[in-house]
């Protein structure tokens, strides 16, 4: 993934890496991955600014499944890389390290809850959040636990009469609150959000709390960082800028609020920061561009009532994002928000676009991973899971849209939650793809981690 300035600094600290700039310039981007030392940083969306740009190119043609690594539950976590290993979490409660070349397990570490966050791997340490309410620090070589940090406890976003479910006076947990906050690591501090409504800053070496910042609701977005400020959205409908050293609020941006059914509110999308602008999707059916220094809104793109859960990718003055219900892959101008591309993905997108060379990878909840031409948005190829092809119970229509009449026959009691669970049985891609050395690694709700080339 793209290396932020901070990442480059750590790269150059490694003795081997002194030659890296020259070698990389000579050998090109794909070969450049071989230049990475073992301790390069990997985290959700690639780096601290969450740009979502890979340093490796994705193939423009699909050739084969290189290997498949099965786990015991769905994989919504996105893979990270460390020294030839793919490190990711599974909702079966384990953190896995898998040999990138062979797909064989190198190590596994158990937690006490689903691991629905993406591990950050920095300086030989893996930082990952589990539904057991703890941040884990693991030795990246063998998975050994270095320390655990306990929050006040995880929970999903919940509200009375959520999404119009009935009875209206009942409180429902949001079945689409699938991710946990993925840790961000900057200058020896681990930042992450929690279901206890806090943004935490924890010392990466000791696991000691540095500070915590309280928001008004669940924080399952992943924080982004630039120039001493941590940016994170909360399900209270606000996006916060917090001083990274002291944990004090710099500014807050208020997104939409839906007091009626709480459907059109909350930052589930994680922000990206580029060029002094914070970009974030929101469940209030907008993508926002905010001044990173002041929080002032520069522009917004309305998505016609459709959530923007996926996190935007930023490259070449463009913002790449995707929507849920309207199932659109969109590209807008970063400076103005002007629409440049719009393509139909057929089903909800929660996975975040990965830009890998001239290809953009988009995981779709209908169990397809789409590779699109970066310049035009045209579909280059699709990978479809076996579960999606089997389509048991007609979860998908013949053209791979969600068959909502069969999935959601009622708005009463747990019916909608059951429908949402059925949606995920087609091997939905919540996970955001990682591209390394031309190979795509991505998790699926069918429980597999796939290596595609």
């Amino acid at each position, binding site marked *: 993934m793209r290396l932020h300035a901070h990442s480059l600094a750590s790269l150059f600290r490694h003795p081997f890496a002194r030659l890296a700039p020259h070698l990389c310039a000579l050998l090109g981007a794909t070969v450049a991955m071989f230049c990475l030392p073992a301790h390069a940083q990997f985290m959700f969306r690639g780096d601290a600014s969450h740009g979502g740009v890979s340093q490796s190119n994705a193939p423009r043609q699909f050739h084969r499944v290189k290997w498949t690594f099965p786990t015991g539950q769905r994989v919504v976590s996105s893979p990270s890389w460390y020294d030839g290993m793919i490190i990711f979490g599974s909702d079966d409660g384990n953190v896995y390290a898998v040999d990138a070349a062979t797909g064989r397990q190198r190590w596994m570490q158990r937690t006490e809850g689903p691991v629905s966050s993406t591990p950050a791997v920095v300086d030989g340490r893996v930082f990952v959040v589990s539904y057991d309410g703890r941040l884990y620090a693991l030795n990246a070589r063998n998975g050994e636990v270095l320390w655990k940090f306990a929050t006040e406890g995880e929970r999903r976003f919940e509200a009375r009469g959520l999404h119009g479910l009935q009875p209206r006076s009942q409180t429902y947990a949001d079945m689409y609150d699938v991710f946990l906050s993925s840790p961000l690591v900057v200058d020896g501090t681990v930042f992450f959000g929690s279901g206890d409504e806090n943004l935490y800053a924890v010392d990466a070496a000791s696991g000691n709390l540095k500070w915590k910042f309280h928001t008004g609701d669940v924080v399952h977005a992943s924080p982004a960082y630039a120039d001493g400020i941590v940016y994170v959205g909360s399900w209270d409908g606000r996006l916060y800028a917090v001083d990274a050293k002291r944990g004090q609020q710099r500014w807050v941006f208020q997104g939409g609020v839906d007091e009626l059914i709480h459907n059109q509110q909350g930052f589930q999308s994680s922000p990206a920061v580029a060029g002094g602008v914070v970009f974030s999707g929101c469940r209030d059916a907008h993508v926002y561009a905010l001044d990173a220094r002041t929080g002032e809104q520069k522009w917004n793109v309305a998505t016609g009532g459709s959530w923007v859960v996926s996190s935007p990718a930023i490259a070449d003055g463009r913002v790449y994002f995707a929507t849920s219900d309207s199932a659109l892959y969109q590209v807008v101008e970063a400076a103005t928000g002007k629409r440049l591309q719009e393509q139909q993905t057929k089903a909800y997108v929660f996975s975040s676009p990965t830009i890998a060379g001239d290809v953009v990878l988009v995981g779709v909840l209908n169990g397809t991973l789409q590779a699109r031409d970066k310049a035009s948005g045209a579909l280059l190829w699709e990978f479809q899971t076996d579960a999606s092809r089997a389509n048991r*119970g007609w979860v998908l229509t013949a053209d791979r*849209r969600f068959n909502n009449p069969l999935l959601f026959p009622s708005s009463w009691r747990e019916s909608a939650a059951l429908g949402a669970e059925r949606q995920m049985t087609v091997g939905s891609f919540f996970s955001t793809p990682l591209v390394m050395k031309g190979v795509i690694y991505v998790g699926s709700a069918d429980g597999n981690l796939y290596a595609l080339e």
Partner: protein
Amino acid sequence: MTHRVNFRFRPMLALGSLLLVATVARSAPDPAGRWEGVAEIPGAPMRMIVDIARDPQHKWVGSVILPGLGVKGAPLNDLTVTDAALHFGLTSAFSTPLEPAPAVRLARRTDGTLAGELHEGGHAARLLLRRTGPSQVDIAPPSTAVSAALEGKWVGRYELGGHPRDVTLTLANHPPGAARGEIVVVGRRTTTLRVDHVVQGAEFITLQSNQAGFRIEGRWATADGTIQGQMVQGPFEATLVLHRAAGAEEKMP
């Protein structure tokens, strides 16, 4: 060209005719009745109970029950019965039907069953229905006419989630004595809804739009001539008082 039939063969001809009649009768079981079976959707078989009957005008009508999908007595649309086949749509059975609309196509088989396919979401699943008893078609009560006091245009406002919505209701009687109407709701966007069902009682009126599951109900026989009630949509209810629109006078009988 005519044929004379030899007398000796007449009994055989008669028998043959009888057999032919019997075969035709067997190949075309009376569609009227309750039919039950399972649509073989891979991984999630769907039980279906279909009732078919003739209405007083001898027109075929029917309804369907889909256990587990919350469907009881949804009317069959475009029900077509021929000597050999039976087709109907299931548009009303699903709250948000996809295109193409869900439908069932069945052959009337000689063994007295109905066999064919359920079409939904672009898929087709085998479906076999067997008669299990007499028909129990759920026939929705027809709309009533509305009194002259209610015909015309009404306006009101309700508030939901802190946002006001302006409502304009138009009601008119149409032959053969059933009211129809339209509801226009103006909030952040404008929504026009057809009134599918009207029931005016002695004091209470109910107006139902199937399109968005939107209902207006309330007392119409009020002292000040308003309709006092509420709008209902899924889990939401809000007070709604409808007044005669300015310039829209009550229609005199």
